[in-house]
Each structure stands twice: as C-alpha cells, then as structure tokens.
C-alpha cells in the first residue's frame, strides 16, 4: 500500500490545528473542526496529436469551521502559520455572530466515534505526478496520431488530481488521507459532406494511478482501434424515428442517468429543501422513506464510500465520519438517503453515513454524493442476452448530453453510440437519439439488470452542487439493463428542422 507523501506530512498540520481548535474553544465554540488540504491537479490537452496547453496547479490552504451558540461559522486561510490559524478561528466565530440574527435552527451534529490519528490512501500503483509530462504527451500524442488519417481531427485530454487532506476536530478525531484520480478522454471527429460528428472514448474516470493508461483497468489501444470505423458508420447512419422503444443501456451511459435521477434525488439535504433555491429539491421526499416505489423489483441501489477505485471513496469524510456502504433502494423501494452529520441528527438517523465533502480548503463541507450504484443480479444475463429479448429497440452506449429538472422528475439524455435492435439483434447504428422520461416511470420500466459480468464503474470528476459552487468526483457502478417502452426523441426534429 502506498504512503502519504512526506512533503504533505511535513506541513505544520497539527501545530495549526491545535492553535485553531484551542482558539475556537477559548471563544466558546461548542464544536470546531480544522481541515488542511492540498489538491494538486495537472491537465493537458492535445489537438491532432500536438500539445495545445497544459497546466500543473495546486490549491493549498486550511479552514476552520465552528458551531457557536448554535450557528455555523466558517473561515479559511492560506498562510500556514499558527497566527493565521488563530485568526481564521476568530473570523469563523465572527461569521457565526454576524449570521446569528438570521439563524432559526440551532445546529447540532450526529455523534461519531472518535477516530484518533488514522490514515488512509486510495488504491493506486503509479502516482501520475511522478510521470514526466513529456511521457504523457507522447502517449496521448501516439494514440491521437494512430487515429489521424482515418478521422479528420482528434482531441485528447488528461486530467489528474491528487487530493491530500488533514482533518482534526474538538472531539479528538484526527485523519490524514491521500487519494489519486485521473480521467483520459480522446475524441475523434469527422466530416462527411455537410455532416459532422464525433465519437468519444467510453473509458470512465477512475480512482487509479497512471497504470490506468498502461493496461490496468482499461484497454485503450483496443477501444481506439474501433473508433474510426464506428464514427464512419455513425456518419452514414439513419436518423432515428421518434417514438417508444425498448432500451438496452450500457453502463457507459446509464451511470449518468443513475447520477442525476437517483444520486441527487436521494440527498437528504435536497429532499428537505436546503438546496431548493439552487440545485433544487427532490420528488423523493422524506415522508416517502420506506414506501416510495422508486423502480421495479429488480432495482437495488447502494450508496458507498468504500468501493475500490471509486471516485467518491474515502477513509473518513470531511466531518470525520468513517466511509460506509448503505442501501438506498431495495427491491425497488426507497429505503435510505445520503447524509451528513447535521442531516442525520435532524431526521433521527443516529449516525451519518459519511457523505460530507468539501472540494477545496476555501469551501464548507456539505453533503455530497457517495458512489451510488445499481446492483447487478447474481447469475443475471449478459448484455447479448438482454438484447436478445428485444424485438424493436435501441442499444445505447456512452454519455453525452444530460438535463434533469429541479425535482429530479423529467430528464433527457443522449449518448455516444446508438444501435437499432431488431428481433433480438443489433442492426446498425442510429443518429439523433435522445431518451426522455419521468424518473419513477423510467425505473419502474426496468425489466432486467445484467449479471456481475456486465457491471462497470462509470463516473465524473465534476458533479456540481451548492453555493458557492463546489465540484465533487463520484463513481456509479451499474450492470447492463433492459427498459421497456421509453420515449425516444429525434433531436433534429426537436430543433425544428
């Protein structure tokens, strides 16, 4: 197992935490937490096998959060000195005082066992920041060059993040963690007459190291070899006829539908209205816990922060709560929500299930998404078997456009690749496809989930929530799935053409 980088451990973590927490205690805070973070990122972009731009950046700082007389207060700083930590504690208390006149709900937190001086490192082999930029450019450039000539243009990008967090609170919990994630994307573009289209790799972002690009977890050369012919076929494909179709949806597409229609809909802060003015609320209101028929009986959804290589996986969350796994939908019924410590206490859950996260030292931790995943069926069908059950339908791979309303009812998604299904067999690609549905209608129309062999962990780096806006990485696992009678739009016709 890898160790936390020594240069992060060499920062004055405990010295600053002690100074800030003691000052918060002295000023009468009922609770205080100190968090010091370094988030390093490197992004490079190539176009037609040539480096277009790259940037190696980090974000370093610390935050103090207090509860003073039942009101939150938060302040962050960038100078890593005990004096600055004390100042931030004083500012956090002052923020609580200025805010007190508009606070009508005294803040209390669900209890959590003390985790004294514990460490955690995510599962990866090769730190991407140990790999020289030129090697990365050479690898992506080589892959791009292999496509050029068979397509008109190729864009390639690689995002890499190393997140290091130190957390300490007045209860005595002290955690130190490090995790790595990366997301490679290649997109091929081609024009045929007046028709332009593109096709992107389906490789998901992962909580792995650079080994992901060299053969562990994904076969990039094999996927890239197929793309030019697939794109050529897509350009010549017929436009879909709008109507009702059965759908077999690949994990590379369905992860995003899970994210939007289950992941966000089962955040308790949303369901209780705390995000009402921005991200929105949820149709899955708290009074329906245990009774809402979310989907068909084959629908089982788990939230977890423990899945290996998951983007939301941690040892402990940003409120010092241990990462856990928990049911959200069981046999099609809503049975759980994602929680932070405040929401957990507010609704009598006893303990948070560890879903607090802040994306930077300058931001407040809030309830963010666990790896919310649809479970496969033990001994369930293969993707080919699912397709064989469809007389007239569409097989959808890869994500592209997505949109869902503020209560998570009405959604519309497109994809990267669409295949017509006729009499149980694939019958060539289609174009201009979007599927549109109401969340519960959609999940209730799910007739079958595939077996474990079809299960893939998809995800994103950039799930947005909250004000000020924060982004969070999250994975969603799913098997291949079969839905009956879903509304398909023709996107060209939707545009009035």
């Amino acid at each position, binding site marked *: 197992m890898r160790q936390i980088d020594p240069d992060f451990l060499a920062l004055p973590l405990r010295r600053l935490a002690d100074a800030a927490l003691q000052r918060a205690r002295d000023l009468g805070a009922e609770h205080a937490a100190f968090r010091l973070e370094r988030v390093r990122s490197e992004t490079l*972009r190539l*176009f037609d096998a*040539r480096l*277009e*731009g*790259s*940037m190696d*950046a*980090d*974000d370093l*700082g610390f935050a103090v959060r207090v509860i003073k007389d039942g*009101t*939150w*207060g*938060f302040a*962050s*700083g*960038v*100078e*890593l*000195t005990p004096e600055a930590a004390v100042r931030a504690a004083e500012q956090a208390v002052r*923020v609580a005082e*200025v*805010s007190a*006149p*508009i*606070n*009508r*709900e005294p803040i209390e937190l669900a209890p959590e066992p003390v985790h004294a001086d514990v460490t955690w490192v995510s599962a990866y082999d090769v730190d991407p920041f140990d790999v*020289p930029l*030129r090697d990365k450019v050479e690898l992506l450039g080589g892959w791009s060059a292999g496509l050029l000539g068979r397509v008109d243009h190729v864009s390639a990008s690689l995002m890499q993040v190393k997140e290091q967090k130190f957390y300490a609170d007045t209860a005595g919990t002290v955690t130190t963690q490090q995790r790595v994630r990366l997301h490679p994307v290649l997109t091929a*573009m081609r024009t045929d007459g007046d028709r*332009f289209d*593109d096709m992107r790799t389906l490789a998901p972002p992962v909580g792995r190291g650079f080994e992901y690009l060299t053969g562990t977890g994904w076969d990039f050369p094999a996927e890239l070899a197929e793309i030019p012919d697939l794109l050529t076929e897509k350009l010549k494909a017929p436009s879909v006829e709008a109507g009702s179709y059965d759908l077999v949806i690949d994990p590379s597409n369905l992860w995003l539908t899970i994210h939007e229609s289950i992941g966000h809909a089962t955040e308790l802060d949303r369901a209780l*209205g*705390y995000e*009402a*003015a*921005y991200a*929105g*609320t949820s*149709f899955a209101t708290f009074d329906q816990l245990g009774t809402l028929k979310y989907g068909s009986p084959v629908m089982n959804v788990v939230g977890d922060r423990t899945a290996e290589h998951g983007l939301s996986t941690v040892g402990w969350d940003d409120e010092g709560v241990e990462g856990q796994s928990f049911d959200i939908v069981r046999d099609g019924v809503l049975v759980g929500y994602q929680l932070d410590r405040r929401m957990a206490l507010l609704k009598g859950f006893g303990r948070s299930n560890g879903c607090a996260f802040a994306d930077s030292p*300058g*931001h407040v931790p809030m309830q963010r998404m666990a790896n919310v995943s649809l479970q496969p069926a033990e001994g369930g069908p293969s993707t080919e078997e699912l397709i064989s059950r469809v007389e007239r339908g569409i097989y959808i791979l890869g994500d592209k456009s997505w*949109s869902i*309303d*503020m209560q998570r009812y*009405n959604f*519309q998604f497109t994809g990267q690749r669409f295949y017509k299904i006729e009499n149980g067999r694939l019958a060539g690609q289609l174009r201009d496809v*979007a599927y*549109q549905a*109401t969340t519960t209608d959609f999940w209730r129309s799910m007739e079958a989930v595939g077996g474990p062999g079809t299960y893939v962990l998809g995800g994103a780096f950039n799930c947005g929530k909250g*004000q*000020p806006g924060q982004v969070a990485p999250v994975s969603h696992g799913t098997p291949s799935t079969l839905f009956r009678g879903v509304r398909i*739009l023709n*996107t*060209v016709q*939707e*545009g009035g*053409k």
Partner: protein
Amino acid sequence: MSERMGTPQETVERALALSRADDCVVIVEEGSTANLRFAGNTLTTNGVARSSQLTVISIVGQGVGVVSRAAVRPDQLADVVAAADQAARDAQPSEDARSLPGGDSLGDWNRAVEPTTIEILRDFAPALGESFAAAEASGRKLYGFAEHILTSTFVGTSSGLRARHDQPTGRLELNAKSADLSRSAWTGVATRDFSDVDVAALDATLARRLDWAKRRVDVPAGRYETILPPTAVADLMIYLYWSSGARDAADGRTVFSKPGGGTRVGERLSDLPVRLYSDPAHPGIECTPFVLAHASGREQSVFDNGLGLGATDWISGGRLANLVQTRHSAELTGLAATPSIDNLIMTGPDGGRSLEEMIAGTERGLLLTCLWYIREVDPQSLLLTGLTRDGVYLVENGEVVGEVNNFRFNESPVDLLGRLSEVGRSEQTLPREWNDYFTRTVMPAIRVPDFNMSTVSQAN
C-alpha cells in the same frame, strides 16, 4: 524559513527576476469572499475565505511551461519558477507562440490589496432577517444565497507589461415559496458592493408572483408564444457566446461553421437589428480590461496575456460580426483577433419596451421566470435543452391570469435569433443558470412566437 507571503507586486517582480527562460509571464491572483446561504427563512451555511494563487508561465524558444501554486512563500518562489522554466525547456514548440504584448501599464499597480470581509454583509444580514420575519408572518419561505468576491489580479511580463485589475463580484439570489412549497418565484441581482441591494423590495416582487400562481392552469407541451425575461435571455446568450470559438467554427464543429469550410462571420442571424457585444468599460458591469490566460487552448493563448481589451461586437445589426479567438487563431481564420471578455450585452431596436409593457401587449402567451439545467444536445445547431423554473405564467389580454406547469424545452439560441418577434429594453440582469461563472450581463426581454416546450415537467 519564512512562513509569510510577500505582497503580490513583490512576488511578480521576484518571480520575473528569478526566471531563466527566454520570456516569462507571472500572474498573481489574490481572492477573498464572504457569503451567506439560507433556506426556509433561516441560515444554512456561511463563510469567509481567502486565496492566493501564483502562476508562472515560462517560455523557452517556442516551448511553454505553466506551474501554478497556492499560498507561495518567498522562500518557495525559486522552486516554482524553476519548475516552470524546466517544463518550458521540456515542452514541444507551441503553435500559438509569438511575442508577448508590449510594456504598457494598466491599472494602479502599487496599491495594496484590500480584501472583502463578512462586514460587507453587515447591513444586508439584518435586512434579510427582517424579510425572513415578514415572509414567515405572511406564509412565505425564503431561500437563496448572497456572496461578495473581490479578486485582485496582477500580471507582469518579461516584456515589461504590468497590468492590475480589482474585480468586485456580488450576487444575491432570492427564491420565495409558499408554505406548502407548491408555488415558487425567483429573482436575482448582480451587485458590486451590496449597497444597492433592497432585499425587501425584491421580496415584494416575489410575493406578487406567488399571488399570480394561486390560479393554476395546466398547459400541454407544444410551441407557444413566449416572453423570455432578461435573465433567461442572458443564460441562452451566454451559451451562444461560450460556443462562439473561431477555431472550432473553422474546423466545422459548431453552429458557426460554414458548410463546406470557413465560418459564418458576416452571415445574417436575425432580421431584427440585434447587437450582442462585450465591453470591459460598460458602466455597472466593468470587467478585466486585458487578457488573462493561465494555459493555452482553443480560445485563449498564454502569449496574449496582458493584451488590452476593448468593446467587441459578436453580433451587429443582426449579423455575426466576430468569433472568440486569440491572435494565433485570428491568423489561421483570417479574422480579427477578438479575445473573450467577461461581460455580455444584448440590445435590440431603439425604443424597446419594458417587460411590463411587453406583458401588457400580449394577447395570449407564456411568460417565463427563468431557465434551468441548460445543456447542449447538438453543437452543430446549438440545440439546447433545459427546464423552465420558478414560475411560468399564462398571459391573456395583457394580464397575467395564472401559473402554468413547468416544461422541458429544446431550442437553439441561434435559431431563436432568427425567429424573434420582439426585443425589449435592455437592463442589467443576473443569469439564473450560469451566475456561478458569469454575472455581468445587460439583456432585454424577448418575444418568441413559437418557443418549443418539448414536454411537461412535473417539478413545481
């Protein structure tokens, strides 16, 4: 070892002196924020935050190395600069390489940075508390967010340029709901310092809209005459602006690509004399008057850092006038170098009516509050999908007669420009969807005779 940071001006000068590259650009950004967030007539989160970011862009030959670090102390500066210099030496030649802009001086370089603090909300917070009390008493719940950000940006180059800009950015989003949460209304304002924010007046407009919503009318999906208020127009036009990169257009990838090659610059998009433009000096929405680029990409070049920005028309007289681009892409496309600017203004014909006058002049149509979850469906037509939110009202014979259900729309803002039947009077507005990224807009309300409401959304 010193644990304290230097002033931004000292950091820029020292970093430039330390660089052994052929050329160097140093950017220091000092940020400070204060915010309050609330829901259901009570505070939910709050905070103050500081940030300090140093970006060193080293240039060796035509190679570029970019290293950006937070909270850099003076004793760490040499390592950051050396890393950028080494990255430049290792880099492939950059196709956008060219001379850095000359040695002008922009802004008050030497003045100390004055961060924002929670005190900027000291008067606003009690006023908000009074509105909470008033709302509670009359059965309304208020939700929203108030934020003030101050960013001081310093750009120094080895060519002698020193540019500084202090950007205040304030916003208030206010959302009122009926006690049973079945009715909802939204408004938002952009502000530079919160001194001009009248929360009670804003709440009063929301109370009026909640009253409008007491009569509910179900309307099916379809195409309807629709009035989009300035905030909704802002969200659509921002997306259009973000999609107006010259290189992608020239490569055939966007709605501004000309079939067969080239761009659509010069082509008529609207029969009305619509103007869409940016101007760093536009009163009330002033923004950074020089290029700021941390890394090169399709629509920005690190070699343009510090380049002065002036008023730029994107659409003029209804015709596509310019696309966003760098000096490098301007050479490739044969068009003017027109880099991105951080504000956006749209105007129509002289004498445009106010939103109230447009409502009064409507026989039957829909009036939107705002749009939400706008995403691109097809880049080549710029077909966007999204939702209506927080109030869609039915207008009959010049008056709002009730609230209708929400819809999912599928529309292209470029196509809409060709179908406008009216452009109203322009006013400063806060975009609902994109105000995390873009707050400085002046927009009109518009009337579209056949806006495509693709499906009904159950959300309310």
